[in-house]
């Protein structure tokens, strides 16, 4: 396996220090904008750097601009303004076939009239590589995805997962330094998808190739990525590592898009340091981390279900009286629907042993550090506008 890894990786010989020096500059988007109709922007003021060897995921709802971003990087779309550089060179005038970027498509885009081997050999044959060399490299690439014995089949004779592995082999066989993946697992069922996530991740580690991955599935993004760029309304809402995004979302949109979150509506009473006191609509109040909120303004307070605890009485800082409205049994844990006195509903994650019934009064509590107050107006989860894509 190691021999194949060396053969297929692009820059294995390069000293680690040199890679670090210009690390974020391997791919660079500088003030990139894209508009299809001249009025609305599919992508606005995009600034994004990708490090060499990084696994970066562009995550967002459909219409958020992530696929447009990928297409501009691949060369299928040209930015309306701004510059994209690849290894320090602007690719503005470079057609897709000269960019040397591997790409995996959602529907695999395998060539139906060619066998698996011919598909994988295609990028090599257009590069005028000798026949024996092509055969050897196709063999290695098919070994890598464990499909050597299917070489003479047509794509239509393979299962979805096998087709996806052929597409991977085809995108990697010409040793591109950058591989783009556009929702490559979208057509697979859940179990196969999880398996392929691992497989792609292993290939990434083995080959040291840089991968830019597009998905709308947040769990996929969290599982696979070094960093995730959350897209919303044509721009990056937040860029960070998976645990940053999960634990420290910077906007109401990211908080609700990544993982599950309770959202309480309220108004900021006062700000003290990095905390603030929020008066909830309909009564009650909580202390939360202030993320860009102003005193007197409406806000959303986001709390993860697993950060909420049930306590015996209202002794904690953020104790809220509630009534149980339902209990969902999920095996390893249960979800409790708790209606607060002000009418808002919280989901609380509780252990499998909890037994409270409907109508039972409980007190829900949460540490102020686990409550995040966001401005109510900007970047809310409900206002995903459809701009192009």
């Amino acid at each position, binding site marked *: 396996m190691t021999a194949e890894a060396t053969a297929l990786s692009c820059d294995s010989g390069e000293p680690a220090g040199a890679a670090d020096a210009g690390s974020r500059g391997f791919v660079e988007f500088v003030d990139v904008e894209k508009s299809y109709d001249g009025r609305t922007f599919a992508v606005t003021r995009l600034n994004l750097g990708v490090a060499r060897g990084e696994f970066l995921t562009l995550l967002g709802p459909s219409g958020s601009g992530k696929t447009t971003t990928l297409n501009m990087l691949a060369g299928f779309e040209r930015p309306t303004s701004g510059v994209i550089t690849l290894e320090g060179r602007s690719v503005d005038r470079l057609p*897709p*076939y000269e960019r*040397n970027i*591997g790409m995996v498509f959602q529907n695999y885009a395998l*060539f139906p*009239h060619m066998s698996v081997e011919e598909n994988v050999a*295609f990028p090599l044959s257009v590069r005028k590589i000798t026949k024996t060399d092509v055969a050897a490299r196709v063999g290695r690439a098919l070994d890598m995805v464990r499909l050597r014995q299917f070489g003479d089949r047509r794509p239509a004779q393979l299962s979805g997962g096998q087709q996806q592995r052929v597409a991977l082999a085809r995108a990697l066989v010409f040793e591109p330094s950058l591989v783009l993946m556009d929702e490559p697992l979208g057509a697979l069922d859940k179990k196969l998808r999880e398996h392929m996530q691992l497989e792609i991740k292993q290939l990434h580690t083995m080959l040291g190739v840089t991968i830019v991955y597009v998905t709308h599935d947040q769990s996929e993004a969290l599982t696979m990525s070094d960093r995730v760029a959350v897209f919303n309304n044509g721009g990056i809402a937040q860029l960070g590592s998976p645990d940053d995004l999960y634990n420290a979302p910077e906007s109401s949109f990211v908080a609700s898009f990544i993982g599950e979150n309770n959202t309480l509506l309220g108004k900021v009473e006062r700000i003290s340091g990095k905390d603030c006191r929020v008066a909830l609509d309909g009564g009650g109040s909580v202390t939360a981390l202030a993320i860009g909120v102003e005193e007197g303004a409406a806000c959303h307070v986001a709390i993860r279900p697993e950060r909420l605890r049930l306590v015996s009485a209202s002794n904690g800082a953020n104790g809220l009286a509630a009534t149980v409205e339902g209990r969902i049994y999920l095996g390893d844990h249960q979800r409790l629907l708790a209606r607060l006195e002000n009418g808002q509903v919280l989901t609380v994650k509780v252990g499998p042993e909890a037994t409270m019934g409907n109508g039972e009064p409980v007190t829900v509590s949460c540490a102020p550090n686990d409550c995040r107050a966001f401005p109510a107006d900007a970047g809310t989860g409900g206002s995903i506008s459809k701009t192009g894509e």
Partner: protein
Amino acid sequence: MTALEPTKLDRPRTARDRSAADAKAAKSVTAKLRRAEFGDRLRSLALAAPLLVLLALSFGIPIVLLLSRAVYDPTIADALPQTSQALRGWNGAGLPGDAAFLALAADLRDNQAMGTAYELAKSLNARVPGARSQVLKTVRQLEAADRPPLEVMKAVPFWSAPGTWPVIESGTHSVTSFYLLSALDLHWNADGGIERVPPQQAIFLQVFMRTFFVAAAVTLATLILGFPLAYLIASVPKGLAAILIVAVLLPFWTSILVRTAAWTVLLQKFGLVNDLLLWLGIADDRLDLMYSRIGLIIAMTHIQLPFTLLPIYSVMRTIPPSQMKAAYSLGAKPFTAFRRVYLPQVFPGVMAGCLLTFILCLGYYITPALIGGASDQLISNFIANYVNVELNWEMAAALSFILLVFTLALFGIFARILGLDRLKLV
């Protein structure tokens, strides 16, 4: 199965028993399946039956009857019973004996009496040019009865000419290869071999070649015009594609006669096309577009364009844009991507479109008749002429038969190369 046979249960079963039982079970399943499917098959047959009957009555039987006239022509045999009898022992060399002359004279008189002499004369004329006047002249002289019949017959040089008697002899056989051979410019020579007719009589091979040439030219023209247009329609957004498709189909919904008439207006010497060419300075003088090969090909190309375009479009539509994107991303330049990824995938559509147009062009009739000149008449015009004007249905049947065979052979070759399942007609 064994559960139904309790006596066998206590005996240990050998492998052979088991396989025999399995085979028996499989057989009974197959039989059941066949019974079940038989009902389904009967039902679908019943649904198709009215159409099949209509096709058989209005299409199959008439075609078989008409085409059979190419090889079965009893006119002469029926009209000349005594001559047929007299020629039975003739070896075909030189002239037959006087008995045959006398028998023919008797037959000619009988025909005159029954009023069928003219029909006989016409039928002989189809095989020996100029026979009609000779027959009618002889009949008149025989009727005058001022000389013995044998003398009359010998006095008309036509009856002693070398080509006459072999033709009469072959005519006395109801089944004949004469018309089929004629359709290919061939005939039986005096020695009983097949040879090409003299060049001044040869006509049909040239017409077949012309028909194939015009069909090929029109097919090529529609492909050159239709392929990029199909590509355009397949790649623009749906709304615009629908408008373009309607634009392509609009002439398709107009009668072929109307469209041909429109082309005569456009192509004539003082028509719009000539006006435009003069005005643009492309031509110095007015061109003869009407009644010319080029005008014929232009008009036929216009009519045939949708037939070539639609199968190509229907295949192009199924090729997702990601195919070309994938080829580009893998390093293929546009032309390479087109040649190695796009073209092989649209090839079945191209073949189907071209085949459809080519075969339809082989049967063109109205357009060559109205727009083509005398030397641009295609095989269908000759067939129509034999049916409507010359009333020589045998010749028409022979030409139709040859055309049909050519067409089927062509279709067979295409189907063989591509496989019928890959021929995507619509």
